[in-house]
C-alpha cells in the first residue's frame, strides 16, 4: 500500500537535491570554520556563501542571519533574549492565543520565573490578529511583540507587515515565528518590517535540527548559549556546516520554485477541501478561506473524535494529524481551534491535512474517496448528533455551500 503523507506541517522529507548538496560536508570537507588553517578556511567560505544566500532571500545582511539548532531554539533566543536585555524598559510581552507551543511555553516560563507580564491577543474566527487590537495592547513597558506569520494548525496567514508597523510606531521590537512560512511565503524582512524572524529547516525540505534567527542590526539580546562566540556571539557552538549548507540550499530551491509549487498546491488543496465538504456532511473548513497556506486544509468533522478518524485513515495509508485531544499528550482540545470561538463539542474532530512536494492529484482523490465511508462508520457508533446551527453562525453555513459550488 502506498503511503500518502499529508503531514508536511509536522515535518518535510529532505529534498534529494538538498541531501546531495550536503553530502560533501560530512566526511570530505569537515573543517571547523573557526580553525586557522586551510581546512577551516574552506569550511568558513562555504558557510559564508550559505549565509549570504539566506540573507539575500530574506533581504538582509549576512551579519543578521544566525544559524541555530531548530525553530524552537530561534524562538527561545528571540523571546528570552529580548526580554532579558530589555529589563530597563519593562517586562511586558505581547503575543497571541494561537501561537505554537514554542512561543506559548517560552512566554509562560518567563511569566513564572522571570516576572514577565504577557498579553495574549485574541484572533478572529478565521484566526487572524487585528492591528488595532495590537495597538491597544501596547504599553510603555512593552518590550516585545511576537506574532506568528502563518499558523501551523489552521494555516491562517497573519498580516505581519501591518502588525509590525504598529509595533514600530510604538518603538516596540517585533518577532515573527515564520516556521510554517519559510519557503512558501515572502520572507523579505524589509517588506515585513520585522526586527526578528524565526525559520525552521525541517518544514522546508531541509533536515531537522537547523533553524535560522534573523536579528536586525542594533537589536540587543542576551544569548541563550555561551561559549566560543560563534554566530556573532549570539549562539556559541561549532557551526554545523553540512546542515547550514542544507538549509541554504533548501531555502534557495523553495524560493525558486515557490510560485509554481504554490499554484499547484492551491489547486490540490482546494480540490481536497471541496471534495470533503461536498461528500461528507457536517464538515467545515477551519481558518481563513483565502489567506491561508497553500498546503493546509484543516477540516472539522462533527459527531466523531479526531483520533479515531486518524486511526482509520492510517489503515488506508493516509498520514494526517489532529491538533486535538487524544493524540497529543494532553486531553484538552486544540488551543487554536478553541481560539476561533468554536464550541467545545465542535473542537474534538478537526483534522489537518498538509500537502507537500510529492503530493499528487491521485493522493487527494484517494482521501476524498475513502473519507466518507470512514466518517459514516464512526458516526454510526456515535451517540452524538450535533446541530450545525449550534456550531457555525448562519452566514458560515451559507458560505460552506458556496465554497463547495466553486468546484
Amino acid at each position: 500500500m502506498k503511503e500518502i503523507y499529508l503531514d508536511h506541517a509536522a515535518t518535510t522529507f529532505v529534498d534529494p537535491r538538498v541531501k546531495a548538496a550536503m553530502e560533501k560536508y560530512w566526511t570530505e570537507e569537515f573543517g571547523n570554520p573557526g580553525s586557522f588553517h586551510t581546512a577551516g578556511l574552506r569550511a568558513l567560505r562555504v558557510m559564508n556563501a550559505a549565509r549570504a544566500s539566506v540573507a539575500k532571500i530574506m533581504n538582509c545582511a549576512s551579519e543578521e542571519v544566525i544559524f541555530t539548532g531548530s525553530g524552537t531554539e530561534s524562538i527561545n533566543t528571540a523571546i528570552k533574549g529580548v526580554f532579558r536585555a530589555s529589563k530597563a524598559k519593562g517586562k511586558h510581552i505581547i503575543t497571541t492565543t494561537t501561537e505554537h507551543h514554542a512561543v506559548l511555553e517560552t512566554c509562560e516560563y518567563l511569566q513564572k520565573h522571570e516576572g514577565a507580564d504577557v498579553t495574549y491577543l485574541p484572533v478572529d474566527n478565521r484566526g487572524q490578529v487585528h492591528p488595532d487590537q495590537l495597538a491597544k495592547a501596547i504599553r510603555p513597558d512593552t518590550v516585545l511583540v511576537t506574532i506568528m506569520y502563518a499558523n501551523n494548525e489552521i494555516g491562517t496567514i497573519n498580516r505581519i507587515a501591518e502588525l509590525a508597523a504598529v509595533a514600530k510606531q510604538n518603538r516596540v521590537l517585533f518577532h515573527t515565528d515564520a516556521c510554517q512560512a519559510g519557503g512558501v511565503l515572502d520572507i523579505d524582512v524589509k517588506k515585513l518590517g520585522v526586527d526578528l524572524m524565526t525559520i525552521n529547516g525541517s518544514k522546508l525540505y531541509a533536515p531537522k535540527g537547523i533553524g535560522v534567527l534573523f536579528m536586525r542590526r542594533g537589536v540587543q539580546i542576551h544569548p541563550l548559549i555561551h561559549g566560543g562566540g560563534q554566530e556573532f556571539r549570539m549562539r556559541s557552538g561549532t557551526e554545523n556546516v553540512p546542515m547550514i549548507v542544507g538549509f541554504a540550499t533548501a531555502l534557495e530551491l523553495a524560493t525558486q520554485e515557490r510560485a509554481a509549487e504554490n499554484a499547484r498546491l492551491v489547486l490540490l488543496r482546494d480540490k481536497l477541501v471541496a471534495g470533503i465538504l461536498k461528500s461528507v456532511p457536517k464538515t467545515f473548513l477551519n481558518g481563513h478561506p483565502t489567506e491561508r497556506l497553500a498546503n493546509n486544509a484543516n477540516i472539522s468533522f462533527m459527531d466523531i473524535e479526531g483520533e479515531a478518524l486518524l486511526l482509520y485513515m492510517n489503515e488506508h495509508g493516509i498520514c494526517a494529524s489532529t491538533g486535538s485531544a487524544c493524540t497529543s499528550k494532553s486531553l484538552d482540545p486544540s488551543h487554536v481551534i478553541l481560539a476561533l470561538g468554536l464550541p467545545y463539542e465542535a473542537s474534538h474532530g478537526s483534522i489537518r491535512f498538509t500537502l507537500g512536494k510529492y503530493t499528487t492529484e491521485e493522493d487527494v482523490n484517494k482521501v476524498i474517496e475513502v473519507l466518507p465511508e470512514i466518517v459514516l462508520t464512526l458516526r454510526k457508533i456515535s451517540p452524538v448528533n450535533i446541530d450545525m446551527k449550534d456550531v457555525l453562525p448562519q452566514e458560515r453555513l451559507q458560505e460552506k455551500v458556496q465554497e463547495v459550488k466553486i468546484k
Partner: protein
Amino acid sequence: MSAITLKPVIHPDLQGKKVAAELEEWFYTDIVKDHFFSPRNIFRTQKEIDDYKPDGVGMVGSPACGDMMKMWIKVDKATDTLTECKWQTFGCGSAIASTSMLSVMLSENGGMKLEKALQLKPQDIVKRLVDLPARKFHCSVLGDKALRAAINDYFRKSGQDSRVVVEGAKIIDKILKITDKDIEEAVLEGAVTFEDVQKKTKVGIQDKSCIPEVEQLIRFYREKFFGADK
C-alpha cells in the same frame, strides 16, 4: 567500513515497563486494533436502539469533554446476572476498543453477576486488551463509568433503590469547593504529583489545610488506576 543499521524495534529495556511519555509508542496492540476496527456489541442504527428493550441505560461524558459513552444493559433478575451489554460512543480509539472489550467481558459465558460487574476495574479491561498506552488509560474509564450508571438505572427501575451506588463527591478544598472527583479526574488525566494536580484543579492554593488529604487521594487514585508505583 561496514554500516551499522538501527532497526526500529521496541528496545528490550523498555518492554513492559512504565516509561516517559516521550519514549512510549502510541501504537495499539493487535487486540486493541481488532476491537477498534470491529467493535463488538455496538449499536449501529437508530432502529436497533428503538427495538431494544433494555433493563438499564447509562450515559456519561459529553461531546464537549471530547468523549461520551452510552450503554444499554439487559439483566436476568432471577439470577441477578447482566446478560447483554450494548453501547455507542463518541470517543477515541482507546475508548472504542476498551468498551468493546468490556462488553465482551460482561456478556461472555452467559453473562456476569451484577455484584462482579460492579467490581470490574478499568485495569481489568486493559489487562484483557494486553495493553494500552498509559496516557490513553483515561479513555478506558469511560465505559466502566457508563456501566455503573446503567446498573444504577436498572436498580432504580426494578425497585432496588437500596442497591444504587452513588459515587458521592466529597468536598476537599473548602474554599474552592474542589471534590475528590476532581482529584480523581486530574489523576486520570495523567497528573502524578501534587503540583500536577494543583495545576489542573487549583486545589490547596487557598485552602492549604487540605494538602495532606489531597496527597493521600493522589496516592489512592494512582494505585487504583495505575497500580502501585514501583
